[in-house]
C-alpha cells in the first residue's frame, strides 16, 4: 500500500480532471482556449500601457473532423525569452495569484492548461512566437508540458527554440518554419491545435468575443471564424482604463489559517508592526485596539505567537472596527463607455448605465456596474438564411424547439413555439432533418414573428471585464436580476423569472478578488454585500427604463387617441352628408381641424384622467442614450463599409 502512494503532480491532476478548467467537451474546450488566450493578451497589453489589438484565427485542420487550430495574437510588449516556456508550459505559474489587484485571469492555470489539453488530444505542441521590439530578434518556441513533473519541454531547435532575427532575414525564417505571424512591431502569438467543435449561438466563441467587445471598449478585436467570416470590433475609445493599484489584504478578508501562515512567514518583529505593515487600513491605533481585544501585548514578538494567540487575534479583528479598504484599486469601465460599448454592439433604442460607488465584501473592495439596452431585436431576427442552415447542421439539439431556444439569445420557449407555428413545422422535428422548403419557411417565420412578447431579458455577466457565459442559474448576478421587481419599471415578469421584453442587461463586477463558485470561473458567489450593490445598480437603470417606457406608452396612447377620432370622422361626415345633403368633403375637412385642435390640446395638457397637467421634459439624468428607432432602422438598412463604423456582423 505504502509503495503505491506517491506525489501527484498538478499537471497530472488536471489532465485527469480537465472539466474543472472548462475542458469538459470539445465545444467548451475551444471556447476556454480562446478565452484564456484573449484574457492573457488583453492583460498583457494593459499592463504595458498599450491599447490592445487582438487577432483571433480559428481554422479547421484537415487532419480530422474535430481538429481545430486556434491562433491568438496581441500587440503587447512580448515576453522575455526565458519566461516563455514557463508561462505557457507550467501550470500554476503566474504573476497574478500572489497579489491583490484587479485583473482578468487569476489563478494562472488558464493558457498552459489549454496547451496541455491540445497536447493530450492532438499530440501537437503549443507554438509561441514573441517579439519584444522591432529591432530585437523574436523567439519561436514549440512547447510541450511534461505532465509528470509540471515542467515545460521545448521541442524545436533542440530544446532551445528558434531565434527569428529582425528584418528581411526574419521574414524568411518565419516562412521556413511555417510560423503564423501577423507582421507587428511587438506582441505575442500563441497557436494551439486541439480537438474541438465550432458552433455558433449561445456559449460560442462568437458570443464571447462580442460580449468582450461590449465590456472592453478600448480593445480592438479582429476575428476570423473557421468558415472564413471576418468580424471586426473596433475600439470605441482610445484611453486605457486606469491601471489598478495593488493593495494589501484587509483584515476582514482573511481566515484564521491564513493569519497563522502570515505570522509564520513575516519578517516583522512585533505584532503591531506585523498588523500595520501586512494589512491595509490598520493604523498603530487600530493595531493596539486589536491587541487589547485579544489580550496580547502590542509588543509581543511575532515568532512567539502561537496558535491559541493567533485565534484570539483573529477574533479580536472581527470585533474591532476597521475602516473599509481603499477602493482606488478598482478600475470600473465607467458609465459613458458602457453606453458606447452597448450601443456599438446591441441594437436598441434606449440605453442606460449605472456605476455604483465601490463597496466591500469580506474585506475585498468591489464595484458593480450595470448597463441596459432596450428595444433591440433578437439575434433570431437578424440571422441570415445561410447562417441558419449552418446552425441547423451544427446544432446538437434534439428538437427544433430546443434548437431555437438554446441558440438565440432572449428567445424563450414561448416565442419559439410561435415561430414554429408560423413556420408550420413540427415541434419535435430534429433540426438536422429539415428540408429545403422547411428551412425557408422557418427563416421567414423567424424574421416575421413578433418575438418581443415572448422574449426574455438577456443578461450579460462580466467579472473584471471577462464575460461569464455558463452556469447562469448558479450565479448571484442572474439570481439578483430575477428577484428584482421589474414590473415596477414597465416590464412584465413572472415571479422568480427573468423579465420579458427586448431588454439586454450587462452586469459587471470589478473586484480585486471576484468570488467564483468554482474553478471554471463562471458564476459569482452571492455575498449579501454584493447582492445589495447589484440590486441598487439594477434598480437605478430600471428606474430610468421605467420613465422612458411610461413616456413612450403615453405618446403611443395619444397617437391612438388621435387615430381613433380620425377613423370615425369619415363615417360621420358620410352619414351627415346623406341626411342633410351638406358637403361631405368640406365637413370632413372641418372635422379634421377640430380633431387636430382637440388632440393637440390633449397632447400637452391632459393626463390620463383628462385633467390638465404641465408636461415636464423627460429628465432621465445623465448616462442615458436614446436612439430614434427609425434612425436606427435607416442605419441598419444602409450597407455598412468595413469595420469603420459600427461592428460589422456577417449575420446581420
Amino acid at each position, binding site marked *: 500500500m505504502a509503495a503505491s502512494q506517491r506525489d501527484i503532480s498538478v499537471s497530472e491532476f488536471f489532465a485527469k480532471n480537465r472539466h474543472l478548467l472548462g475542458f469538459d467537451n470539445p465545444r467548451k474546450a475551444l471556447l476556454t482556449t480562446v478565452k484564456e488566450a484573449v484574457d492573457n493578451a488583453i492583460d498583457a497589453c494593459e499592463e504595458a500601457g498599450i491599447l490592445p489589438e487582438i487577432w483571433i484565427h480559428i481554422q479547421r485542420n484537415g487532419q480530422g473532423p474535430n481538429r481545430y487550430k486556434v491562433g491568438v495574437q496581441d500587440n503587447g510588449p512580448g515576453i522575455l525569452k526565458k519566461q516563455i516556456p514557463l508561462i505557457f508550459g507550467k501550470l500554476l505559474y503566474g504573476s497574478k495569484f500572489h497579489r491583490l489587484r484587479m485583473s482578468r485571469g487569476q489563478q494562472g492555470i488558464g493558457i498552459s492548461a489549454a496547451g496541455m489539453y491540445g497536447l493530450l488530444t492532438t499530440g501537437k505542441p503549443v507554438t509561441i512566437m514573441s517579439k519584444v521590439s522591432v529591432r530585437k530578434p523574436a523567439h519561436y518556441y514549440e512547447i510541450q508540458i511534461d505532465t509528470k513533473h509540471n515542467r515545460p519541454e521545448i521541442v524545436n531547435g533542440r530544446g532551445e527554440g528558434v531565434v527569428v532575427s529582425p528584418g528581411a532575414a526574419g521574414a524568411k525564417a518565419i516562412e521556413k518554419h511555417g510560423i503564423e505571424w501577423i507582421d507587428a512591431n511587438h506582441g505575442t502569438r500563441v497557436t494551439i491545435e486541439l480537438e474541438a467543435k465550432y458552433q455558433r449561438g449561445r456559449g460560442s466563441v462568437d458570443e464571447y468575443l462580442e460580449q468582450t467587445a461590449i465590456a472592453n471598449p478600448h480593445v480592438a478585436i479582429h476575428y476570423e471564424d473557421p468558415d472564413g467570416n471576418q468580424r471586426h470590433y473596433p475600439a470605441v475609445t482610445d484611453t486605457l482604463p486606469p491601471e489598478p493599484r495593488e493593495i494589501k489584504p484587509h483584515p476582514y478578508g482573511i481566515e484564521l489559517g491564513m493569519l497563522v501562515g502570515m505570522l509564520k512567514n513575516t519578517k516583522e518583529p512585533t505584532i503591531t508592526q506585523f498588523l500595520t505593515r501586512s494589512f491595509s487600513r490598520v493604523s498603530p491605533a487600530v493595531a493596539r485596539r486589536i491587541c487589547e481585544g485579544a489580550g496580547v501585548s502590542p509588543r509581543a514578538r511575532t515568532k512567539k505567537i502561537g496558535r491559541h494567540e493567533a485565534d484570539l487575534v483573529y477574533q479580536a479583528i472581527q470585533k474591532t472596527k476597521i475602516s473599509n479598504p481603499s477602493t482606488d484599486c478598482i478600475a470600473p469601465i465607467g458609465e459613458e463607455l458602457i453606453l458606447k460599448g452597448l450601443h456599438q454592439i446591441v441594437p436598441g433604442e434606449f440605453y442606460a448605465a449605472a456605476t455604483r460607488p465601490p463597496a466591500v465584501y469580506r474585506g475585498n473592495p468591489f464595484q458593480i456596474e450595470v448597463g441596459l439596452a432596450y428595444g433591440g431585436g433578437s439575434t433570431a431576427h437578424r440571422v441570415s438564411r445561410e447562417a441558419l442552415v449552418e446552425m441547423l447542421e451544427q446544432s446538437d439539439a434534439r428538437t427544433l424547439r430546443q434548437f431555437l431556444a438554446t441558440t438565440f439569445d432572449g428567445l424563450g420557449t414561448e416565442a419559439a413555439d410561435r415561430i414554429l407555428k408560423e413556420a408550420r413545422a413540427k415541434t419535435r422535428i430534429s433540426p438536422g432533418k429539415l428540408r429545403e422548403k422547411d428551412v425557408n419557411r422557418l427563416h421567414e417565420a423567424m424574421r416575421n414573428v413578433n418575438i418581443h412578447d415572448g422574449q426574455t431579458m438577456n443578461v450579460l455577466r462580466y467579472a473584471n471585464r471577462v464575460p461569464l457565459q455558463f452556469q447562469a442559474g448558479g450565479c448571484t448576478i442572474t439570481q439578483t436580476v430575477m428577484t428584482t421587481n421589474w414590473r415596477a419599471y414597465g416590464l412584465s415578469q413572472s415571479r422568480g423569472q427573468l423579465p420579458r421584453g427586448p431588454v439586454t442587461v450587462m452586469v459587471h463586477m470589478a473586484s480585486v478578488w471576484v468570488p467564483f463558485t468554482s474553478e471554471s470561473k463562471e458564476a459569482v458567489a452571492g455575498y449579501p454585500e454584493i447582492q445589495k450593490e447589484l440590486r441598487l445598480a439594477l434598480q437605478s437603470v430600471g428606474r430610468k427604463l421605467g420613465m422612458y417606457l411610461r413616456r413612450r406608452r403615453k405618446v403611443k396612447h395619444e397617437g391612438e387617441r388621435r387615430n381613433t*377620432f380620425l*377613423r370615425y370622422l369619415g*363615417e*360621420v361626415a*358620410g352619414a351627415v*352628408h346623406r*341626411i*342633410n345633403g351638406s358637403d361631405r368633403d368640406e365637413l370632413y375637412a372641418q372635422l379634421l381641424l377640430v380633431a387636430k385642435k*382637440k388632440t393637440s390640446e390633449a397632447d400637452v395638457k391632459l393626463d390620463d384622467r383628462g385633467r390638465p397637467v404641465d408636461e415636464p421634459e423627460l429628465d432621465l439624468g445623465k448616462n442615458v442614450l436614446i436612439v430614434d428607432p427609425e434612425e436606427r432602422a435607416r442605419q441598419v438598412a444602409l450597407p455598412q463599409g468595413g469595420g469603420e463604423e459600427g461592428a460589422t456582423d456577417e449575420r446581420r
Partner: protein
Amino acid sequence: MAKKKASRRKLSPVTQRAPMKAKLTPRDKRTLSQLTGLADGVVVAARQRRDPHVDIPARALSNVRYSPRKRIIEMGKRTTRRKLFDLAQAKAFMQTMLVARGVKDLIDQGKSNSIRGLFYTLRGKIADTNEHTFDQQSDCDPIIEDVEVTLASLREEMHLFADPKGAMVGNIVVTDSGDDIDCSRMGSGGYAIPSIVEPDIMQFKQCNARFVLHVEKGTVWQRFNEDKFWRKHNCILTHGGGQPPRGVRRLLHRLHHELKLPVYCLLDNDPWGYYIYSVIKQGSINLAFESTRMAIPDARFLGIRSIDFERCGLSDSVKIDLNDTDRKRARQIASYPWFAHKKPWQREIKKLLDNGFKLEVEALISKDISYVTEEYTPARLKNKDWLD
C-alpha cells in the same frame, strides 16, 4: 390626406345609389326634420370648430319618474351628452349618425326594415381599417333606442320593427293592412301579432270578447287555446313570448283603451314574471317615453301567486330554487315606487323570498293537464282574486 381620399372612395358608391323618393306622410315629415336637425348640429359645430355632440335622454332608473296620478312611468329630463371627440364615445357617436342615416333612407324609400335588417345595412368595414361599424346586433340595438328617445319618435315612425313575437286568439275581428282577420278562426297557431299595430295599419272591426287574458309564453298559451278557454269565457287570449315586445304591448293598450276590455295577466311566480307585469302596467324603464302609448295601469295580476304552492297543493317536484340574482331582483322590484306602497305586493314578494323557490305556470299543468284552464283561472276570475 390619404385617409380622406380613401374614405371618399368608399362612400361614393353609396351616394350614387340615390334613394327613390316615396310619398311622405306628415309623421314621416316630422321625423325627417328631426333627423336633419341632428345632422345640422354636427355641421354647425364643425363650422365653428367646436366639438359636435348629441344630447340623448338618459335611459336609466334614475331618470324615470313614477307618476302616481297617471300611474305610469314617465321619462325625466336628464340627458347624457354624446361627443364625437371623446375617446369613449367617438364610436358610439359615429354609430348614432349611421343609424340616423339608415332611418332617413328608410323613410325616403317608404319601406320599413327589421332592426336586424338595419344592422346588416349599416354594418361595414370602416375605411382603411379592419374595424366594423357594428360588430353585432347587440351593438346596434341600444343605438337605435338612443335615436328613438333623442328624436322622441316611435320605432314605427322610424320605419323599424322588431321580430314579431306573441300571438292572439279570441272573439275579435281585426283588419290588418286591409285584410280582415277573424281571430276566432285561427286554428292552433293563432294570429301572430305584428310589430306595428298602429291604427293606420290595424283597425278593430268587431269585438264580442269581455276581457283579455295575457299569458307569459307560447306553451301556456297553447294549453289555453287547445282547451278553448277563450270560447268558454268569451275573451281574447294573448302571449308575448316572455317579455312582451312593443307590438304586443301596444295592442293590449289599444284593446284596453279603445275597446274598454280589462286585461288580466297570468305569469310565472318569479321576479321575471313580476317585472313583465310591471312593464305591461306602468311601462318599461328603458322606453319610459312611450309609456303613455303602452302602459295599462289597470292591468291585473292573476297569478301565479307565491301562496299557490300551499293553496293548490302542489308537489315538491315543481319547485325551482331561487338563485342570488333572483333574490336581488325581487328586492329591487319590491322597492320600485309603484310597488313600494302596495301592501299586497310587498306581502307577495316577501312570501316569494321566504319560500325560497319559484313556480312556473307549468307547475299547475303538472297537477292536472287542464287544471289551470278549468279550475285555477276561472276561480281567480270568479272570486276577483288578483293583485293590482
